[in-house]
């Protein structure tokens, strides 16, 4: 049986982003040439975005199992047990290309999409995070993009009522024409009430719920899989607009419905909308599906089957209900003023069949659509200039003349300055669970009905990844783990968002493979499962790929929320202690980049055994209530970390007197970014016990000084008033953003 409409040829297939060989595969798999609507369906299902054809073979290496894992990769989101019969459901996802084209709506719909992935599983979203990358401030579009993206992230999350509690934002020339917007959502669900997107039960009705379908984002999924070029302008009308109000209603209606026994399977209509949601649900359940496009609620007149199938209108869900439960579904959606329409049913022939005007316009076997795309083992090769990039001779770098000024300049760089300009645009309170708001190493949200809390952090230093993608990716994992440990949490699960350039280039593929290897090794060393994630390839413009950016979202568990910890000093007289060892490592540092204009060298080395030990010591110390603050030492090194301990607290600022302990170059001691270090403050009476805990894990511990006065003094090198540190640090991003005061639309 053939779908209606004229057959297409190879040329049309190539215009849809398939290769000639892939088109031949398609024809072989379905035994004929497809018509145009079918080609649309196939091309999105076989796009990089939906099929993971370049990355799948590599991703197999990531560990995704463990005693807490309830759902690994393959569903809408991953799930790990947090005890008490509850599960944390979470995922991170990219919305890079749409955000470059229309920053507000691109970012907003990215947030909307990831929240749907989470509540689709039955979980109520309780926290959002975001990871952002922009070009440098001297690029003409940067401010426009930053203000649009941040407003869009906030605009959507704020209006839906999910707090945005953390994230990261970095600026680097490498993202000038290709920004990154990665959004993360975490939700909580009863472990035995997790919903999946696996259609079953021949004859069960398929329902469409949510917003009406318009001509939004047609070709979005295939667009997300191609590089930008001069035609980008022409792809503009495809921009989707989000409606967070409808999303809020959708969340409440779906969660209410899930309490009933009415749903067999549920999936949101994300990229490639109706097509991918119906194909993926049918494929997971090993069944067929038939839908009638005449019954799809539409916003515009005269839409073709092709357009309806590929529309990426937002705030829509597809539900397979139990036969007979249609009315129950309709009643609940009615209560929330939402449309629900029966548009088809589950069938037994393993085909996606689409009717329009009484005619069958698509008849394609589900299996080949979902899994038929070729899996490529793409060639890879280390970039020729990699070794050159890693060469760094420290002798040629003069030490700073004025350390005070070096520190204040570092604190004012866009990558280190306070992020308050960003997160003050996000509702951090709604939901009533936020224990630690943005501004500490990790956010902490409590889990109602328990004593527990979740700590969250997203991290990636893409400069390290550029210099050495293996070490850089490892660092992203261990740093995000260290961040949640500093909050007093045990890391229990990872979601990753792998942002890279064009995988058809061997150098990019090498970066990708190295990064995945780094994530694997770090996760294995810390016994962490990767339960969900997302791959975003083809992030390049006119042939220039972005720096490799494997963003890691870390979820940690705090058993007793009262024993959580924050990064800032809290009491005059407390001792300041460093866990871990400082080496002469300046490669890839913010200090070299911002003050010397040097981006080269090897990133700080990581010994995974040492890292694990440092984290265990810190976690145990917090759990034994020995410490008053714990702060990860990251960009800017020890001096910046100390300054942050002094100035980042919400209630007043405290100074510190620190002894210089440098057996290495003083600038390396102060500004180098050696890994596996944590700054702790504690009452002196707890020092003996902390020493024992550290000694038991062979972890170096150095008493650096104490919290004292209103100046930060480090040996005889550095002596600045904390109020001055605070003012340069807290105002820098806002004044960079205000420089021309532009806000579009």
């Amino acid at each position, binding site marked *: 049986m053939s779908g209606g409409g004229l057959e297409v040829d190879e040329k049309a297939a190539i215009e849809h982003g398939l290769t000639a060989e892939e088109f031949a595969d398609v024809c072989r798999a379905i035994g004929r040439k497809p018509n145009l609507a079918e080609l649309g369906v196939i091309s999105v299902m076989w796009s990089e975005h939906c099929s993971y054809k370049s990355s799948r073979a590599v991703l197999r290496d990531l560990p995704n199992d463990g005693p807490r894992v309830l759902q690994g990769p393959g569903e809408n989101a991953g799930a790990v047990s947090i005890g008490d019969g509850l599960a944390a459901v979470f995922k991170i996802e990219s919305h890079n290309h749409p955000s470059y084209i229309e920053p507000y709506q691109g970012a907003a719909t990215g947030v909307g999409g990831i929240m749907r992935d989470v509540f689709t599983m039955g979980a109520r979203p309780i926290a959002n995070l975001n990871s952002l990358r922009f070009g440098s401030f001297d690029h003409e579009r940067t401010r426009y993009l930053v203000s649009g993206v941040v407003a869009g992230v906030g605009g959507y999350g704020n*209006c839906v009522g999910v707090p945005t509690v953390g994230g990261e934002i970095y600026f680097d020339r490498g993202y000038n024409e290709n920004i990154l917007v990665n959004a993360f959502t975490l939700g909580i669900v009863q472990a035995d009430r997790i919903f999946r997107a696996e259609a079953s039960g021949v004859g069960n009705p398929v329902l469409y719920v949510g917003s009406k379908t318009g001509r939004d984002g047609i070709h979005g999924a295939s667009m997300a899989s191609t590089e930008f070029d001069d035609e980008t302008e022409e792809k503009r009308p495809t921009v989707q607009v989000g*409606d967070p*109000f409808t999303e*809020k*209603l959708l969340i409440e209606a779906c969660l209410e419905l899930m309490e009933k026994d009415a749903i067999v399977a549920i999936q949101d209509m994300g990229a490639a909308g109706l097509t991918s949601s119906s194909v993926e649900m049918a494929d997971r359940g090993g069944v067929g599906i038939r839908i009638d496009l005449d019954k799809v609620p539409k916003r515009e007149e005269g839409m073709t089957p092709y357009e309806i199938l590929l529309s990426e209108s937002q705030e829509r869900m597809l539900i397979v209900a139990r036969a007979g439960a249609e009315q129950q579904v309709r009643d609940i959606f009615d209560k929330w003023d939402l449309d629900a329409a029966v548009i088809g049913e589950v069938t037994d022939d393993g085909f996606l069949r689409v009717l329009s005007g009484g005619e069958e316009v698509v008849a394609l076997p589900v299996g080949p659509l979902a899994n038929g795309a070729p899996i490529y083992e793409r060639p890879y090769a280390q970039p020729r200039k990699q070794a050159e990039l890693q060469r760094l001779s420290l002798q040629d770098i003069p030490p700073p003349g004025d350390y005070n000024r070096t520190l204040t300049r570092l604190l004012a760089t866009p990558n280190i300055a306070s992020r308050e300009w960003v997160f003050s645009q996000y*509702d951090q*309170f*709604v939901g*009533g669970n936020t224990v630690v708001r943005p501004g500490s190493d990790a956010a902490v949200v*409590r889990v109602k009905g328990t004593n527990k809390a979740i700590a969250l952090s997203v991290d990636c230093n893409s400069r390290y990844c550029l210099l050495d993608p293996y070490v850089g990716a490892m660092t992203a994992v261990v740093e995000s783990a260290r961040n949640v440990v500093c909050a007093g949490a045990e890391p229990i699960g990872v979601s990753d968002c792998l942002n890279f350039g064009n995988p058809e280039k061997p150098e990019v593929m090498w970066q990708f493979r190295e990064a995945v290897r780094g994530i694997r090794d770090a996760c294995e060393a810390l016994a962490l499962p990767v339960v969900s994630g997302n791959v975003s390839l083809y992030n390049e413009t006119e042939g220039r790929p972005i720096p490799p950016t494997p963003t890691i979202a870390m979820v940690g568990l705090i058993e007793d929320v009262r024993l959580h910890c924050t990064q800032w000093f809290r009491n005059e007289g407390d001792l300041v202690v460093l866990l871990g060892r400082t080496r002469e490592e300046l490669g890839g540092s913010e200090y070299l980049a911002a003050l010397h204009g040097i981006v080269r060298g090897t990133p700080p080395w990581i010994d995974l055994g040492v890292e694990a030990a440092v984290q265990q010591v810190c976690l145990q110390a917090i759990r034994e209530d020995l410490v008053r603050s714990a702060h990860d030492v990251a960009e800017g090194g020890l001096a910046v970390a100390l300054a942050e301990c002094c100035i980042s607290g919400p209630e007043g600022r405290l100074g510190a007197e620190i002894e210089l302990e440098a057996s290495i170059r003083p600038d390396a001691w102060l500004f180098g970014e050696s890994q596996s270090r944590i700054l702790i403050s504690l009452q002196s009476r707890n020092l003996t016990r902390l020493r024992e805990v550290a000694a038991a894990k062979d972890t170096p511990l150095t008493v650096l000084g104490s919290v004292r006065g209103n100046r930060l003094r480090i040996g005889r090198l550095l002596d600045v008033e904390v109020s001055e540190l605070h003012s340069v640090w807290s105002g820098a991003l806002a004044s960079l953003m205000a420089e021309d005061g532009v806000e579009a639309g």
Partner: protein
Amino acid sequence: MMRCGVVTFPGSLDDADTLYSLSEVLGVEAVPLWHKDRGLHGVDSIVLPGGFSYGDYLRSGALARFSPVMDSVVEFANSGGLVMGLCNGFQILCEAGLLPGALVRNQSLLFVCRAAHLRVERNDTAFTNSCSEGERLLLPIKHGEGCFVANADTLERIEGNGQVVVRYVDENGETTQAANPNGSLNNIAGIVNEAGNVFGMMPHAEHACDRALGMDDGAKFFRSIEAQLARGNAS
């Protein structure tokens, strides 16, 4: 015991948090009210919570005021019942004409979320009797349209009548420009109606009840209502 109704409009967001703070933290009876309700289930006070009712489309608060339950709320207010609107609830009360003035887009054009210092201008109201006069409170704010405006006559009247209950101040209790998060006239954060039984403010009292979450000055507003009711509010 106080029986406080909390209205849920489509797009209300802080409704659940308000219910939680009232019942789980402050231990008073909280009654959910649905926007399609035609009655008030015998409550003795009402909170219109924060959020983005109807997406805040058109103007914040403009569409919610036509919800069926608002007829009962207006009637309740007109007969002296205690009504408190927080953030979006404040906007709705202004749109419904229960409070003077209006709330428009923040002067910065940016949404703002942070802790804000407030100064209690009057402690002889049904909503602030548990505070001392001039007391400084710390409450969260989170809004994109919290700039209080009114025409000159109205502003003069509000100030003349002492209807301004809380203002944004700095750490030293001064009504500085820098302490004003949204450009509100005279740093106004919250006002009462002339009769003193309807109160609206942008800061979120419901998110400042539980010490475990950092701030707890918001509890004072609910405690004040409770005290007022115990004294036998006119309603």
